[in-house]
């Protein structure tokens, strides 16, 4: 059973204009130096309120930099909210940044282990799944060589196969299907459909408006870290498309 409840959630990144603050600067700041490197606060999520109950499939759309990925990472627990409360109940499976975090020197089989354990598997539960993962990613003997020799596509195949081998309550997805060859994309889409059926709650971040309409029961349109519109997918997508079409019409 999955449940997500966000109350007035804010996430603010404090970035430096140039690089990080150095120890020297930190120590001297209070004494006599005025900083040449001011902090820029980026309000990635702005008073976000959202409740998702069992069975809901949420599609998140919006421009680049609207805070969609930050929201997903906050839901996954990677970014703690700067203020507000985040309640997430249920086992999470996150499909974002899936091709990072591999140990390049280790071979495919070992990386299946690391990733599996990272997702909370035990040697016992993973043993059953290893064969299944190997079969799904179709990498065959490549699993015996270190992953640093893998191509980007192969890495995504492996990552996707591992990430989707769990049975989550909550599925968090960020544009994973745009990579890999045609055959794999089709296969991956099938697997995604199965997972969406099995998991009790899903959040899908996508620029593919068709898949949002196809898979989701609810959609939100985000802009500057806020929810601009929340409702039935078709209505939200139509409104979003209209907003994109308008400036284009002016130019034409």
């Amino acid at each position, binding site marked *: 059973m999955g449940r997500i409840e966000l109350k007035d959630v804010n996430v603010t*990144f*404090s970035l430096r204009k140039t690089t*990080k*603050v*150095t*120890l*020297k600067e*930190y120590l001297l700041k209070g004494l006599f130096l005025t900083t040449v490197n001011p902090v820029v606060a980026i309000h990635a999520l702005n008073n976000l309120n959202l409740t998702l109950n069992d069975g809901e499939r949420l599609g998140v759309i919006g421009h680049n930099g609207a805070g969609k990925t930050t929201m997903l*990472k906050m839901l*996954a*627990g*990677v*970014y*703690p909210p700067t203020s507000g409360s985040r309640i997430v109940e249920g086992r999470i499976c*996150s499909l974002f*940044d899936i091709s*990072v*975090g*591999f*140990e390049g*020197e*280790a071979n495919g089989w*070992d990386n299946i*282990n*690391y990733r599996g*354990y*990272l*997702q*909370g*598997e*035990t*040697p016992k539960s993973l043993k059953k799944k290893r064969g299944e993962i190997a079969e799904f990613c179709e990498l065959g003997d490549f699993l015996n060589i270190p992953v640093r020799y893998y191509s980007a596509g192969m890495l995504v195949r492996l990552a996707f196969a591992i990430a989707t081998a769990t049975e989550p309550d909550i599925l968090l997805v960020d544009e994973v299907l745009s990579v890999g060859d045609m055959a794999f994309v089709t296969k991956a889409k099938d697997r995604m459909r199965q997972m969406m059926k099995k998991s009790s709650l899903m959040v899908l971040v996508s620029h593919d408006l068709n898949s949002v309409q196809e898979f989701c029961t609810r959609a939100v349109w985000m802009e500057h870290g806020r929810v601009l519109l929340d409702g039935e997918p078709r209505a939200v997508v139509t409104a979003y498309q209209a907003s994109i079409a308008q400036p284009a019409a002016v130019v034409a």
Partner: protein
Amino acid sequence: MIDHMKAVWTFRYFWLSLVKMDLVTRYRRSVLGIGWSMLHPLAMTTVLCVVFSHFNADPTKPDAWRLYAQRTLAGLAVWEFLRNTLVLGCKSFLQNEAYIRLSPLPYGIYPLRTVMGNSIHLLITLTVLVILVAVLGTVYVQPTIWAVFPAIILAMLFGWGIATIAAFATTYFHDVSHLIEVAAQAFFFLTPIMYEPKLLIDQQLGWLVTVNPVYVFIEIIREPLVSGIIPDWDRYAYAGGMTASSVALGLGTIAWLQKRVIFQL
């Protein structure tokens, strides 16, 4: 805090498998493999034996070098362990950034990966030392050898604490890792490793030996293993106090910064 430690335990397969991988990849493509881990202390021992047997300070005791070689290897083993734990611990969040960004694991796991990896090297060196004691010493095995194990556990916990603090500090200020490297070099000469503590005590600097947190761990690991002496209880109390403070500070730093450190990575 208890939740944090529970979570570290839940993900034990994850960090244990990474420790194993670190060990395997370190010597991948080399002929001897893990044998290098053995060879390193062995080579060091050979050098120590040769040096000490040729430059014998006291001609009335021609066999003194035998003991010096054992004592110095023991001191170096503990020093290397603590130094590497701290220096490599600095980078433990930066190196595991991909995992930190992927999944909200307890932060204590990453310094633990460093400490465990270094502990294995410590154990290998100490095994070489046990052999050396049998070869050069007056008895095959000191009857007090059992006391080494709790001391190693203490040293590992102490190492985890300092590595955790260093990891957070380095994430905020990258200069810290360089500062620590320089400071470690100076600290090496302050610690009676290549010389006997008597040298400092004679200079009225005995307090430097007493408070030195590295030396206390050298003492409680070396004495039962090499000299067959169990150090006084107050030395154990000092080591225990150091360990408790280090672990408490490490846990405190995690509690304080765990919700913020990701924005610094």
